[in-house]
């Protein structure tokens, strides 16, 4: 009976053994990369909205405070999306016949809400609270990026659990004085870690152990 496999198959089989290891790890690596990539995290992907609202103009150019529109950010888990009334406070006078603002006027006229597309979104099993993060000195910019430079909105960070834990494991690196949380261009002093640690002590930021308890965010 002749050999089923020819000698050439030896090379092929070696290649396959190597290939198995290589391919499996390549696939694993690819999955990890895809999961972290903007394709899935949607970080950096511009969201189209019914009204092309520019944070760059309203925050960067005019200098409106974050809280003028996101009014519950210091009190509630939810920062708040401004009701149409907030837009109309100014836009009944300013740009009051701009065609781009017609959806806003229509909303106010017809008493129907504007449906914005969500930009920053967490899974339903994650319970994030804006108010406590501000109270502990986490600035808006830290998570949302330079909003004053965004003509249209995108998600700045991945909002993955890995990203959350970066700060929850070592908050000192990310916090700033409370009076600076809404500032867009605050820079930490020379030794950021020491400065942060002092702040963390002043603000009584909870232990890393408590901050990384599952139930701190999941329940």
């Amino acid at each position, binding site marked *: 009976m002749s050999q089923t496999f020819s000698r050439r198959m030896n090379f092929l089989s070696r290649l396959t053994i190597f290939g198995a290891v290589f391919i499996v790890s390549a696939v694993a690596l690819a999955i990890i990369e895809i999961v972290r990539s903007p394709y899935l995290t949607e970080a950096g992907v511009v969201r189209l909205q019914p009204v092309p609202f520019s944070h760059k103009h309203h925050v960067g150019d005019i200098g409106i405070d974050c809280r003028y529109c996101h009014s519950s950010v210091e009190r*509630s888990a939810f920062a708040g999306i401004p009701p149409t*009334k907030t837009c109309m406070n100014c836009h009944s006078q300013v740009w009051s016949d701009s065609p781009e603002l017609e959806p806003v006027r229509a909303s106010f006229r017809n008493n129907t*809400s504007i449906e914005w*597309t969500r930009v920053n979104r967490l899974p339903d099993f994650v319970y994030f609270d804006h108010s406590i993060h501000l109270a502990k000195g986490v600035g808006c910019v830290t998570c949302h990026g330079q909003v004053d430079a965004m003509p249209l909105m995108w998600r700045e960070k991945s909002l993955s659990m890995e990203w959350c834990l970066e700060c929850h494991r070592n908050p000192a690196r990310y916090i700033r004085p409370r009076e600076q949380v809404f500032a867009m261009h605050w820079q930490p002093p020379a030794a950021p870690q020491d400065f942060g640690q002092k702040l963390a002590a002043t603000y009584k930021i909870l232990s890393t152990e408590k901050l990384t308890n599952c139930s701190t965010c999941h329940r």
Partner: protein
Amino acid sequence: MDSKVPRNPSFDLAAIRSRLASENGPRFWRSLEELADSAIFTEYLRHEYPRQASALAEAPDRRQFLRLMAASLALAGIPACSSAPPEKIVPYVIQPENLVPGKPQYFATAMPHTGYGIGLIATSTMGRPTKIDGNPDHPASLGATDIFAQASVLDLYDPDRSKAVTRDGRVSTFDAFLRALSAELESARTNDGAKIRILTETVTSPVLASQIRTVLQKFPKAQWISYEPVSDDNLRAGSQLAFGGYFDTQYRFDKADVILSLDSDFLSAGPARIRITREFSQRRSVTADTSMNRLYVAEPAMTITGAMADHRFPMRRSDIGNIARAVAQRCGVQGIAMPVGAWPWLEAVVADLKRHAGTSLVIAGPSQSPDVHALIHSVNHQLNNTGVTVLQTDPVEENPGDQRASLQSLCEQMRSGSVDVLLILGGNPVYTAPADFDFASGMDKVRFRMHLGLYDDETSQRCHWHIPEAHYLESWGDVRAYDGTASIIQPLINPLYGGKSAAELVSAALGNTLQSGYDITREYWRQQTGDSRFETIWRQAVQKGVVPDTTFQMRTPKLLSNVQIGNPSPPSNEMENVFCPDPTVFDGRFANNGWLQELPKPLSRLTWDNAAGISPRTAESHHLGNGDVIEIDSGGRKLEVPIWISPGHADDSVTLYLGYGRRRAGRVGNDLGTNAYSIRTSNAPWTAAASVRKTGKRWPLASTQLHQSMEDRDNVRTATVAAYSRDSKTVSEKRPAVSKDLSLYPKRGAGDYAWGMSIDLNTCVGCNACVVACQAENNIPIVGKSEVLRGREMHWLRIDTYFRGEPDGPEAFFQPVPCMHCENAPCELVCPVAATTHSSEGLNEMTYNRCVGTRYCSNNCPYKVRRFNFFQYSSYGESTLELLANPEVSVRSRGVMEKCTYCVQRINAAHIEAEKQDRPIRDGEVKTACQVACPANAIVFGDVQNPGSDVARLKAEARNYGLLEELNTRPRTTYLARLSNRNPEIPAEGHHG
């Protein structure tokens, strides 16, 4: 379904008794199956989820279950390999003042139940009412709730509620109805409305009553009839006998040292039940300066009141009147014919009552005859209790009278054709009216029939018009509490299905310009208070939930001297059949409420069924086992019903629970159990002579009593007050010494807080309010009867019931069991994916998004408090039920383990608030849902590390013990042992009747 019921032969009582008597027999037992060591018990003991292998094979059952859960098929959450679909954010156009998005709001309101109000604080989450709690300012609530109030929010969102005005079953409009009605009323003017009848439930609402009176002024010959199937007719008639007029009786259980209850389940029945539970349990507490009270109960079937008794006397309901006569005679009430009978305990009880004259209390249940109630009034007078523990006011009810008699005359008039217009405002008389009235066929003779109700039910089916009723959370109105205190019913949401309140309907029928419930209610109270003070009073009433100065004054009616009391019933051993409202679905009005259907009924722990209660001895003599179907023949009316052998039930007596056998309740409540109304007649609404025959059929009964057993391991600790005051160590001395450092695992550092719970078994009355509160707070799904039969109920908090002593007359003990949050938690060590972990504050956390569903944790939990989602139990897809979900708690998906979290969402909320204010969390700031609901204040939660906290103080008591603490799990939930205040003059055998 029959095939998979394990054979459950009738029990060998002799063997059980000898086992109990033997040296190493169980001291505490949970079920007769356990005592008999039957196969079904061992099966549940060995397998946490028995018979699950066959579950998928049983296709019809599963289909039934899926149908029950309506939209479970969606199986949401199929993992996808792409980013999440875009989501919309929809802000207000003009945001309401005082609303902070993401923060709940709280509104005072009141829930009418059998006419009487319970003050509530309802939680509104972005406009959706999601949780009900008690209003501390309301006299009937005192901040606590009961199962009905807790579950009422599910009724609001019930997708089976009627959604449209119908005429002869076809969709119509409210305007069309009004046109038709006004034509009828117009033609009725000629004869002063002699053929108009208005049928309501018990009404205490001043607004509705004033409106109906306006109708009666316009149509002087029209009549207003009130009917409740679980009525207080006997109480009213008793008051009439004793005082010559209608008076309501109130009780002050906080002032009562000795209580004798004759068939009164005062802890779970009556309009003051929540307050009474609070007052009663205050006096069970041994930490207070006052002494502990003593409770004697004589009753046929064991109720939670009977379970709390220090001495309980199982007794046929028809014999209890004789006890009342004997007690009255010994207390010095004149002119009573003495009954024949010997009760060895009677003299000791009467002596005890007399010793505490002025601070004792005798109470009889609404199922006892007017004679008994009249006698009880005299007894309380003789014992100087009147004015101290027993008080009278004018009737709170707006239309007091003999409800049964007036319904009877209505039926006669309808049959004779002297009724043309019948307006039924609430209630379901076709289902609940006494069988001999044949209400339905009488009603069919009425030319114009209208039914206002939450559901398109048995009554609306036979009416020309059906109008959907607005739920109390949807409409403005008012209601009085048991003591007359009026509350404004404040809605939290617009009617979901365009419903109308009774007041709105009557107003529209009268052609009033005021159409909305808000205007009607305001206008009435404006007239009451006067224009000048009105706005202040109105604001205060709406905000506080109580209208100031509306509580009724106490009255001191004179006892009539010539009270005629009927003769005692001769001794008989004839079988009697007694009726009781069901402990969870009540008179049937909650039949479509899944939370209440699946809530294990106290003591029997049955779900989804109304089995008849029967004593072990009677079952033995009839060769009956649990689930055997009997035929009850009561005066020629027959009913087939499965039985449940109830320890402590009176012999020769069968208890039938009302509220089941509904045909048009909705998808949840249809065709469950048997309809006891079908053999309930007007001359014997509570007790009837009956004969019982075994049919040979069997019916599967889903009792959770055998589930999640911890075996006989000293789970309940108890002592008598006497022994405890001699030596407070008496309940703890058995505690095995386990060193605190005995652990293979590294010690954890102390966190900022150490959360813990203390549950007082001495005050817990087993009312189940905590279980429903937990279900509402934590989005806990229901699973259906077939799943309960497999031991898969999802309640995070269960109330274990233990018995001690002979099955004929045992003592009963309740033990609520949530997660113990063990410091050395066995579940955490076996989770392969670290989905259950320990927090730095001592919480045993469950992280659903990590759980892969191995169920090792549940297997390793000695307390059996973990629950597994075998299917997609949560009702995704039923849009109205989604509105009910608490947004602070994840809705769990199929294949995920879950359990009590100590309401971690509330802990986190308190953490965040406290830290924003830069202060520690105060003691009492975090209250778990079960704790808030508890009318007995039996559950206390807090930081055990803080020596000044309530929970730390309780845990330092000598009565404190941990469940299975010999396993060194170091549970954070601990119990306070139960004490009983037995009368030394009554021999131990006495309580066996």
